[in-house]
Each structure stands twice: as C-alpha cells, then as structure tokens.
C-alpha cells in the first residue's frame, strides 16, 4: 500500500461519489417534493446510457451523443411520469414501491427488445483517452477527471437552480409544504413533471458518463439505484446538500473499502480469516454505514427542515 495508490483510489471514490450524487439528487428531489418512492429511477440511468450509446454510434460524436441523449431521456422521464406515476402520488409507499418495481421489469425488458445484443459499448473518444500527470507522481485518466469535473459543474448548477432562482424557491417550498404551494397558485402538476424530468435527466446523464467505461447493459440501473437509495437515506431524504455529502462519503467508503479493507483486516486477523472476510465485508460496508446512521439518526444526517 503506497500513497500514490491511496491517492488514486481516493480520486476513484470521489468520481464514484459524484456519479452517485447525480442519481441521488433526482431521487431525493422526487421523494422530498412528491413523496414518491421511485424504484424505477435507475431505469433512467439505463435509458440514458442506451440512448446516448445509440446517438453516439449514429453520429460518431461523443458530445452530439450527449446533446441528443439528454432530451431523449427527458422525454422518457416525462412520458413515464404522466402515464404511470401521476396516479401514484396519492398512494402509500407500498403501492409506489410495487408499481415502480413493475416499471423496472418493463424497462429492463424493453431495452433487451430494442437493443437485442448483449448491451452496447461505445469507444472512448480519442481526445478523452489517456492519462495526465496531476502532480506527486500520480497519473490519472482524463476521462475520469472529466466525470469529476462535469459532475461538480452539475452539482454547482443544481445548487444555483435550487438556492438562487425563482423555480428553485418553488421547488424548496414544495419540499416543505406541498399543499400550501398549490394553494399559492403554483401549478403543482407541472412542477412535479418538471422536477421528475430533471431527476430523470440527471440519472440519464450519469448513465451516459459511465457508458464508455462500463458499456450499457439491461439491468445496469438496479445496483446503482440501491446505492443511490442508501445515499439519500444517509443524507436525509429531501435534502440535496445531504445527498451531495452522503454521496461523496458513500463513494469514498465503498471504493476505499474494496481496495484497502483486506489489507487492514490482515493487520488484525489471521491471513485466511482476513482473506475470507475481506470481500464480504467490503461489499457490505456501505449498508453497515446506512444501518448505523439510521440507528443513531433515523432522519439521516441532514434532514430538511419541514414545517
């Protein structure tokens, strides 16, 4: 274990955390404002990835792929909201969990029908390939730096939107008291659709960023969706700031745990016990974190103030 490796893995953790934030932001907004548990949020991550891969392959341009993929994902999100989710707002969480579970099955299969091959992979654009020296003898892939940069930019933009604009004010008001916002003359239906579309686009964008690294596959949304749920529960449901901090923490703990936990365990356990426990414990680490947070702070670390 050397410092360069630790620094690299920390950057990887940061990148993963930012990716998680892109998913968690939409999830926490949708939950905070509409009180909707949307299991199908990961499906937008997947749809974004596939749509981007398709447009990228058609046009041959990475940025055109993203530019076309975003409105396409938005359309998928809005159609889903209008057709399937609107009747669910008034229902209890159990109904929402079940119905959106059905949507997951639908989307996973839909992807297999439309893109019948075993997933879609796209090449890394040449100008984003390769690595750069970022000091202290660390070389880091350009593409991952790009993910961190664009993720931070989106986070900043989201912060500006929510904290500094009129729309953001309405969104925050909606999170505190939905009925009152409606009574004040805000078209709450339109607001819901807008916020939902925004969440879908953020999730889709995260999927697009990951496609050159992981390739788009059916069912890719679920694993990361559960992690995004962990993030919003740790951060406090409805809080974007909480989601950001929790996403970074989760990303770091997960990544660092997977790379260094077995080394740490070796220091305290005999070799064969450490080897057996290492992989199990490192994949359970963030769930243990979530359970601990919920145990001591049942509302999460940064619960939004609700009146």
């Amino acid at each position, binding site marked *: 274990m050397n410092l360069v490796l630790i620094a690299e893995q920390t950057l990887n953790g940061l990148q993963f955390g930012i990716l998680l934030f892109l998913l968690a932001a939409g999830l926490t907004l949708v939950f905070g404002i509409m009180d909707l548990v949307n299991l199908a949020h990961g499906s937008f991550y997947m749809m974004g990835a596939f749509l981007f891969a398709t447009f990228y392959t058609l046009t041959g341009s990475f940025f055109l792929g993203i530019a076309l993929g975003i409105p396409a994902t938005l359309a998928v999100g809005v159609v889903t909201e209008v057709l399937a989710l609107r009747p669910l707002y008034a229902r209890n*969480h*159990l*109904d929402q969990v079940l*119905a959106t579970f*059905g949507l997951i*099955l639908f989307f996973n299969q839909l992807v297999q029908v439309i893109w019948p091959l075993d997933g879609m992979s796209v090449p890394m654009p040449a100008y984003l390939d390769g690595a750069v020296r970022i000091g202290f003898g660390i070389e880091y892939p350009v593409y991952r730096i790009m993910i961190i940069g664009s993720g931070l930019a989106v986070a900043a933009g989201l912060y500006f939107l929510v904290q500094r604009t009129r729309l953001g004010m309405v969104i925050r008001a909606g999170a505190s008291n939905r009925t009152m916002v409606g009574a004040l003359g805000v078209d709450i239906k339109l607001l819901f659709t807008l916020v939902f579309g925004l969440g879908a686009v953020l999730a889709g964008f995260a999927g697009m960023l990951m496609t050159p690294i992981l390739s788009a596959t059916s069912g890719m949304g679920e694993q990361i969706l559960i992690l995004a749920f962990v993030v919003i529960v740790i951060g406090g449901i409805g809080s974007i700031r909480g989601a950001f901090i929790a996403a970074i923490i989760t990303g770091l703990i997960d990544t660092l745990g997977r790379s260094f936990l077995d080394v740490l365990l070796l220091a305290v356990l005999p070799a064969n016990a450490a080897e057996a426990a290492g992989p199990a414990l490192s*994949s359970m680490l963030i769930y243990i974190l979530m*359970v601990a947070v919920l145990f001591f702070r049942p509302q999460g670390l940064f619960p939004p103030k609700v009146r």
Partner: protein
Amino acid sequence: MRRTEFLRPIFLYRAFVLATCAFMPVLAPLVGEPYWTDIFLRIMIWAIAAVSLDLILGFGGMISFGHAMFIGLGGYTVGILAYYEIFNGFIQWPLAVLISGAVAAVIGAVCLRTRGIYFIMITLAFGQMIYFLGVSAEEYGSDDGLIIEARSEFAISVGDASWALDLGDPMVFYYLVFIILVVVLGIVQRIVNSRFGMVIRGVKSNQGRMAALGFDPFRYKLVCFIIAGMICGLAGALMANGEKYISPDMMHWTKSGELIFMVVLGGMATVFGPVTGALVFLFLSEILSNITQNWHLIFGPFLVLVVLFARRGIDGLFARNTKER
C-alpha cells in the same frame, strides 16, 4: 358458525385451490401436462414464504423489502450442511428455522426502530448485506451457488424398527410440502386471531393507542418479525430441497419485490391471499414466458395496473366484508 358458512364463495374458493394442490400430481399426468406438478410444488413453497411475509406486511404493517433474505438463510443452511455431507433433515431443517429466527431477531431489533420509508430501506439494506455475504462466499460457489447432492434424510431407527421418509421420491416430497403449507396456514390463522395477533393488527392501525393501552409495540412487532423470518427460513429449506441447488439469486432483492407482489396480488392481511398471489404470479410468469421471451414487457405494466386498480387483491374479491378475511 352456521352450516351455510361453508358454502360461501370464499370458502369454496379456498377449498378448491387446496384441493387442486392436493390432486395435482394425479391430475397433471391425466391432462398430459406432467410438469404442472413441478410448477405447483414451486407455487406451494413460494406460498409459504409469501404467507410469512403477509404476517408482518399485511397484518403488522411492516413493509419489509428484504424478506427473501430468509429464503436465502434457510436455503444456505441446508446447502452448506449438505456440502459437509450432513444430510440429516432433523438437523438441517430445525437449524434452518433457528438461524433464520436468530438473524430475524437481530435485524428486527435494529430495523423496527425506524418507520415508514426508512423501514423499507433498512430492510432492503440488510437484504443486500446477506445477499453479498452469499456472493462473496467463495467456498460455497459465490455467484454460481452450490449443487446439493441429495435431499434431506429423515430416518429414525428404534431398536429393530426403523422408519424413513424418502424425499428423493418426488411424490413424498410434494405431499410433505403440501402438508407443511396447510400447517403453516393453520398456524398463521391461529396467530392472527389470537390475542397476540390482535395486538399486532392494533399496532398496525394505531401504534400510539396500543402503547397507551399498555402494550409494548416494539416487542410485539419483533416477535412477529421473528416468527415470519422462521417460517420463511423453512420455505428456504424447502426450496433448496426442491431445486437441489442454492445460489445468491434466491435472495436477490427482486425476489423480495416478487414476494411483496404476491402478497398484494392475493390480498394483504388475508391468511389465504398470499397463496392465491403465489399461484397467479407463478402461473402467469409460466404462461407468459411460454408465449414470449420478453414476458416482462407485459408483466411489468400488469403489475402497475394491479396496484392502481385491484387494491384488495384477488382473495379480497371473494370476501364480501373484511370479517371474512
């Protein structure tokens, strides 16, 4: 109970379903579809698991999104013991139930401190933990799972007299599962109508009021959670025996989702509803997957429609009022 009670649609319907289960091994070959027996075997095992979930979800109002972990725990107990060549069912099955109950006690003690959406999420998190435990158990096959060489052995010998139950015989195993299903239904029926069950249902509708009456909701819910875990662990042991195979897939979080769906489809807070749910769910997936490989394309929206329009579940359609549940 008046004599005509037994002629009400709900009783006739339930008797019909159980009779179908009982006679399927005879009926299926007659109709020329012998594999129906296998489907019904799976239906009955899943029904046991779904009934146990209904105990906490339907009657207790605890929406657990990690219930499949107990299937995994029960299954892995049988599988791992068989791996070390311990095939004795008198060891395997009680241990499967006990381990599930012990884990349920620990997990329940933590989870039941939270409520609402947090309870859904924390049970999901625990389910994931157990799932990854299975995935990372290299000794027991990780993702690929384990093949179980032989079904559990039940043999007693006292002096010269010996008695054995040969689960290797499909008929014997089928009817053992059938009997267990009926017994589980009977036990759950007794539980929900007992004083304990009344407290659980009371806590579901108003926890504060039950606390004010002097009941400790946490303890009642925890005991209920443990009972459900134990029954589901037994279902897991049966599943491992039925498939002669275990893998982390049996406790994947989608399985927990499917269990919830069976309960809701059949009718929450009805003892028999989950059986209907398991029946319809597994039959539908069998039929749809025979029609098209892409059956989730139909099944997904069907799920949404059930949630939107059939809230009382199928069993609820037969019952004229809530008393009949």
